[in-house]
């Protein structure tokens, strides 16, 4: 078992006494202590909140694809299930507190995920990816087709409720950011614990060699469905954040196949089977284009119209993705680790 764990790409083990904890604590301190005080509304509302939501979705997909080795193209569907479930729970069971709505929405997404995970027992690789497309199309179709999901709202676009826990209301940009950060931090910590447990090792065993895993007694059916369930749960919660904390509206068209691909690219570029990778990938996919777009607009905005700028950014980002993946197919996480190791070697050789 231990050998398997060590051969994984950058396993994140949050055993509670390693210096890893210090880094996480520093980041949390920064996230809670510094950003809400000095960050602008723009930073929190337009950059960090979507970053957090997509990072959580990427963690969800990483559990499934990175750790358990099941490729899925249905992530956006589970985002939508989470968002719509939370909306309906909030609407129809007003006595439930919002946190309970979120957890239940995650559970509903998990249930849907398990149903669409069933084909994974027979299908693998590309074939499984194609079958998860069914989730993508089915969910979007169902949400548009049946007006009940959007409370028969004429235009099918719904308003997200105000985020309120007890007497605390998280309406401001800072509030919604802190709310997202807290949810993502807790969910990440729980996921890290889970992946370090026997269940996480089962995932990796199934990914690395299904037959061998079966031989050593890993229950394939349960493990795969559990992976689908946990993954969909996390993605569902991310969907709630995306709809309630970021957009503050829910529309089925926002959860299309493009979004599924976006999340898949986040984990591929960030690094498969790595929690850090989900965050780094999300940063690259969400924050980097914004930076580039603002730089482009500031430097060349007077020369080209926004359409031309947009196109050239796509080219730049596309080229960067190719360059990164050639330099390090295992993602930005591995690239960073290599850079750090090189810097360390340099330091030790000097001293």
């Amino acid at each position: 078992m231990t050998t398997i764990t060590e051969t994984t790409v950058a396993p994140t083990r949050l055993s509670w006494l390693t210096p890893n904890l210090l880094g996480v604590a520093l980041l949390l301190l920064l996230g809670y202590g510094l950003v809400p005080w000095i960050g602008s509304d723009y930073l929190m509302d337009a950059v960090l909140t979507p970053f957090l939501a997509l990072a959580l979705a990427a963690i969800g997909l990483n559990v499934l694809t990175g750790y358990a080795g099941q490729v899925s193209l249905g992530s956006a569907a589970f985002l939508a299930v989470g968002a719509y479930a939370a909306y309906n729970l909030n609407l129809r069971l007003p006595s439930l507190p919002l946190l309970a709505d979120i957890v239940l929405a995650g559970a509903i997404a998990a249930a849907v995920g398990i149903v669409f995970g069933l084909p994974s027992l027979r299908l693998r690789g590309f074939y499984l990816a194609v079958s998860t497309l069914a989730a993508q199309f089915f969910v979007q179709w169902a949400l548009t087709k049946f007006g009940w999901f959007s409370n028969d709202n004429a235009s099918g676009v719904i308003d997200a409720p105000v985020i309120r826990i007890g007497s605390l209301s998280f309406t401001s940009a800072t509030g919604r950011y802190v709310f997202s950060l807290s949810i993502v931090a807790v969910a990440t910590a729980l996921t890290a614990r889970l992946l370090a447990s026997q269940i996480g090792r089962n995932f990796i065993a199934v990914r690395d060699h299904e037959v061998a895993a079966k031989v050593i007694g890993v229950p394939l059916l349960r493990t795969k469905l559990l992976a689908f369930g946990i993954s969909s749960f996390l993605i569902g919660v991310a969907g709630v954040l995306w709809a309630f904390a970021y957009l503050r509206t829910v529309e089925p068209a926002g959860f299309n196949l493009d979004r599924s691909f976006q999340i898949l690219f986040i984990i591929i570029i960030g690094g498969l089977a790595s929690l850090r990778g989900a965050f780094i990938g999300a940063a690259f996919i969400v924050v980097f284009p914004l930076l580039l777009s603002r730089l482009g607009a500031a430097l060349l905005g007077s020369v080209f119209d926004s359409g031309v700028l947009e196109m050239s950014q796509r080219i730049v980002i596309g080229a960067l993705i190719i360059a990164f993946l050639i330099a390090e197919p295992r993602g930005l996480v591995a690239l960073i680790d290599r850079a750090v190791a090189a810097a360390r070697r340099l330091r030790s050789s000097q001293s």
Partner: protein
Amino acid sequence: MTTFRHAKLALGAALALGLVTSLPTFIPQAKADEQFFPLQSYRVGPYAAGGTGFFGGFIDYLNLINIRDGGVNGVKLTWDEGETQYEVERGVEVYERLKSRPGVAAWNPLSVGIAYAMIDRISKDKVPLITINHGRTDSTDGRVFPYVFPLLLNPYSETSGIVNYIATREGGAEKLKGKKIVVLYHGSPYGKETIPIYKLLSDKYGFELEQIEVPHPGNEQQSQWLSIRRAKADYVVLRGWGVMNPVALKTAQKTGFPVDHIIGNVWSNSEEDVIPAGDAAKGYVAITTQASGAEYPVLQEVIKTVYGAGKGNLDDKKRIGSVYHNLGIVNGILNVEAVRIAQEKFGKRTLTGDEVRWGFEHLQLDPARVEALGAKGLFHSINVTWDNHEGNGRVTFQQWDGAKWKVVSDWISPDWAALRPIIEKSSTAYAQERGIKIRTSGDDPVGQ
């Protein structure tokens, strides 16, 4: 060692954050008298044809006011574009990016999804949100939505306008009885929005109604048109979007349905919808709030003053006077006039968003004023009040002759009185859900 590494990581993160946070300060500070229009435009992506035309027209008109008049009473109009590709989250990002600019007058996203995401935000920031010809229908009720303006035409009025047009073609509303109307709608929230309204009107006027869905994107409609033929429809209302429109026209031709009995709605009325259908579109009729063509004086001035100075926004000059370009021009007129009206009350200076909101709530342009603006025949009139944010826009119908649109009807009024109770029912429900105080007069303080 690891501690060091993490400290470095944290330092790097802090630096990156610092870079992002400090970016907004690079923005040039506005000079004293400028009014800023943030534009959430879409020039790339699937809806670029509409986006380039509409935002091109809007910018062309703002440019005309700046070049010809030196701004509105000396207040220069400025704008900045952020590309959204019609995606909601990009629209939100652009909103957050541009909202802190000084002197924001109004937002004009031309996207229902983006508009929905902005309603909470603009209400809090007290800046008007203009959704010309589209948007959330119940935001027509200014008592509940003080900052949202679905100017000229909301989806319900469009429905009523189309039915009224069919009535005039048949020779009166009583002739609608027993006629068969099929609504062919896009399988999206947008497409389904008017289903209950067609039902309501069918009950009212006694015409038979069948509503048929075309799944997105709509590039295969054989079975739908066979059903239409079986139903022996007298008229087909095309409530389409994008590729669905030319395919509908071509399929209609194949199944032998007369094209001049197909009536397009406001998102099926552009050159981009008919040109790909070629011959099949000849004779097709569609609703519009603004006539096409460049013969109107305001368009002539745009061509002379703006394009003459090399500042025109459209790359393809042939698109001047097209449906989307003219919609942008009309949108420009309405925004500029709202600013002008508000300036008369508050002074000829940079106005706050709330002051511009007051201007929109008093945006009353009668046909004489429209003529003075050089837009006679381009659009009819508008009469926005504090509680009616649509402003009773009239509609007209144009027929495609194979090369250009030709107006074939008078200016027709939708049946606003019949629609208002439905709108109020929906808006008061929203007010209740949100705990919004319903305004009882235009002087009420607005806010939540």
